[in-house]
């Protein structure tokens, strides 16, 4: 029949048209494209604590008075060249001279005061304020053009570390509303933002520091890991963030690195989890090594506490729990004999789609616990439900449960972990131990070596005496990097991808 012949002809012409498309060329310029997992819902510098916003803006467009080094968590100068504690509650910051904002305004003490006031302004919903300054009163005073005093109530021994999270913005920035065009002193200026499609940063020629090699960075957003990986493979992008383990198939391009997240199973200390023998049995029955290089990347590290070794307060005294099924069974039997309801069902709540292979990992954990006689059921829930279950105020009819919980401390000090998770006032804390509360308060006010020792003592006490969780892994991320670039990601990369650290091979 003639019609079918015509249809075939049309198909052939269509295919020919498609095949005539020119191949996509790889970009050889000093412009790069970075593909992120999701678009930015806003680009205000006072929200940089959200990793996906900080990852684009922090130290690229917006700089801070001080910066935390990824390698050793040391707080180093940025827009402030030095600082000293003049009183217990007051720090004096000396500003870098001859620094201009990208809109031509000069950096001075007034600009710093205005930036801090903006973050603290209740008219703007700043995540940085909610996270760091909800219960802290900050006051500022201009000493001279390049010197500013910053005080806190209560006194903060780590005020420079806190201020390493506060972006300094141009005085022309809207002080009472979120901005859509952030202006800072960084080596890149914010050129273009199409909310659902892209963000473009251009190199800022008036930058005070060394000129970076990357001239222009375009951020694209793709939620599918395989697609992000493909984009680098075909030359449509130069860096793809958060590639899943399955898509990391090219060792020449895929870089696995420790991110700042630690994974643990938090326990609500209700029967039977109010018995330490049961909690220890949970830990003893997990063969952590079996996950590494299989479900999880080979670079994953077994965790002993909720922070990485580079964080101040990390304790080297702690060793991972051994995998000892017999001992676990023995502890459960002892608890059962004493009337602890060890066969009561405990639900493990986990967030859907938290990380690659998460459900496989959780199913395997549940299986390990079932094998020693613990009654655990996995329930994957949406983020909103998970957050409700794991945040105070807890439900009055709460039962014993486990929460699959990741914690990210990339701020350099244990004070960004212990008060939230271990102090009885902490919004995520299951504990109520006056001794521990007193140590946390004391450690928060301490400085130097004493501070480090106190936080180490806290970490030891929690892990050895309380055992409030099943501590699992320091997690990894995979980044795909175009071979034309030289870039080494670190534990802070997810919240601060510094473009000036990227160089070209040729």
């Amino acid at each position, binding site marked *: 029949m003639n019609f079918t012949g015509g249809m075939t002809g049309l198909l052939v012409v269509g295919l020919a048209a498609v095949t005539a498309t020119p191949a996509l060329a790889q970009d050889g310029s000093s412009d790069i494209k970075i593909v992120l997992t999701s678009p930015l819902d806003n680009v205000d510098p006072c929200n940089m604590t959200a990793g996906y916003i900080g990852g684009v803006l922090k130290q690229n467009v917006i700089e801070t008075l001080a910066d935390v080094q990824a390698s050793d968590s040391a707080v180093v100068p940025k827009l402030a060249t030095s600082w000293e504690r003049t009183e217990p509650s007051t720090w004096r910051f000396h500003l870098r001279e001859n620094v201009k904002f990208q809109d031509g305004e000069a950096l001075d003490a007034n600009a710093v005061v205005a930036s801090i006031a903006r973050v603290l302004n*209740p008219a703007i919903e700043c995540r940085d304020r909610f996270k760091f300054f909800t219960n802290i009163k900050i006051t500022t005073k201009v000493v001279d053009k390049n010197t500013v005093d910053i005080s806190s109530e209560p006194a903060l021994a780590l005020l420079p570390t806190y201020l390493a999270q506060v972006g300094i913005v141009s005085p022309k920035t809207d002080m009472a509303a979120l901005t859509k065009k952030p202006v800072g002193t960084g080596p890149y200026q914010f050129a273009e933002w199409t909310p659902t*499609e892209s963000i473009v940063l251009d190199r800022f020629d008036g930058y005070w520091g060394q000129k970076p090699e990357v001239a222009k960075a375009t951020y694209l957003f793709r939620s599918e890991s395989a697609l992000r990986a493909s984009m680098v493979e075909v030359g449509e992008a130069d860096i793809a963030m958060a590639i899943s383990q399955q898509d990391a198939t090219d060792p020449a391009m895929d870089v696995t690195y420790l991110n700042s997240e630690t994974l643990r199973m938090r326990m609500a200390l209700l029967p039977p989890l109010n018995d330490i023998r049961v909690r220890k049995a949970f830990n003893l029955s997990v063969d952590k090594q079996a996950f590494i290089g299989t479900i999880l990347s080979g670079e994953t590290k077994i965790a002993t506490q909720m922070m990485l070794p580079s964080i101040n307060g990390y304790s080297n005294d702690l060793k991972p729990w051994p995998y000892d099924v017999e001992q676990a069974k023995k502890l459960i039997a002892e608890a059962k004999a004493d009337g602890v309801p060890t066969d009561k069902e405990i639900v493990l709540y986990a967030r859907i789609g938290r990380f690659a292979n998460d459900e496989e990992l959780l199913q395997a954990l549940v299986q390990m616990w079932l094998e020693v006689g613990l009654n655990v059921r996995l329930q994957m829930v949406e983020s909103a439900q998970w957050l409700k279950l794991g945040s105070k105020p807890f439900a009055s009819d709460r039962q014993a449960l486990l929460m699959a919980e990741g914690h990210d401390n990339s701020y350099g000090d244990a004070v960004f972990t212990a008060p939230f998770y271990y102090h009885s006032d902490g919004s995520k804390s299951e504990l109520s131990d006056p001794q521990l509360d007193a140590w946390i308060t004391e450690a928060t006010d301490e400085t130097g070596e004493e501070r480090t020792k106190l936080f180490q003592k806290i970490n030891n006490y929690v892990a050895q005496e309380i055992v409030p969780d099943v501590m699992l892994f320091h997690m990894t991320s995979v980044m795909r990097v175009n071979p034309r670039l030289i870039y080494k990601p670190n534990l802070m990369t997810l919240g601060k991808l510094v473009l000036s650290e990227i160089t070209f091979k040729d």
Partner: protein
Amino acid sequence: MLRYVGLRALNGLISIIGLVILVFFLARLTGDPTDLYMPIDAPIEAKQEFAANHGFNDPALVQFGRFATGLLHFDFGESLRQSRPALDLVLEAYPTTLILSAISMTLAIVVSIVVGALAAWRPNGVFDRVSSFISLAGASIPNFWVAIVGVLVFSVWLRWLPTSGTGTVWHWIIPITVLFIRPCGLIVQVVRGSMISALSAAYVKTAFAKGVKDRSIIFVHAIRNAMLPVITVAGDQAAGMINGAVIVEVVFGFPGIGKLMIDSISFRDFAVIQAGVLVTAIAIFALNILIDIAYAMLDPRIRRV
């Protein structure tokens, strides 16, 4: 005819009002979004401040009163995530989805009518068997799989097409193809079945006897009578496509309504959910009116209902 369309419109309006009320309260049953917007370790006081600022602590009826009052002024509220009017976000996202859906659906209808009619011409013939196999496969394969395999084959292996994005006409080829395959496969089957019945009717045999050309019998006489079930299925598929485009939008980074809705639901961005549902409901309602008008034009008996 006008009375018929008017009655349908009134029914649609009542459904939309019911839907708006339902979505408002169902969305709130899923919980307070405060935890999703605050840093995970934010103190309780900060969360309380945020919830109070946005009225999440108020009784649901009070919140609904605020929403309904705003609605009367065409104010859908502001997106929590993006601090922008919710309606603006929805209306910005719609064109992408409409273009994507309209092109895919038009192609699907044209191709499926031609292929289905030709398959019905010689039931169980070679063309019928091949087209049935392909169309059934098309109707069964998940969009997500087609999308990823499409990128792998045409973008990564062959390097003919870009992987994603919306820059040029080449960016649209894989997404449109992915969206086109399923409705096309389904409608081919409906057209085929409907045409087989129509071609065995007495008036077709009369046309043969009178020596009318094959092409005219299929595409002039039989197809018009075979179109009613096809319009029903095509209309249903078109309405579903507005929502079904979500997978294509998510995978290929198309800034459409499906992706916006998924993100808004995940983040409990109530204002955007409500605006998105209302605008989508109105679009589907308008589509249904068009389908009803098409019915009435094709079948005069319906006009008298």
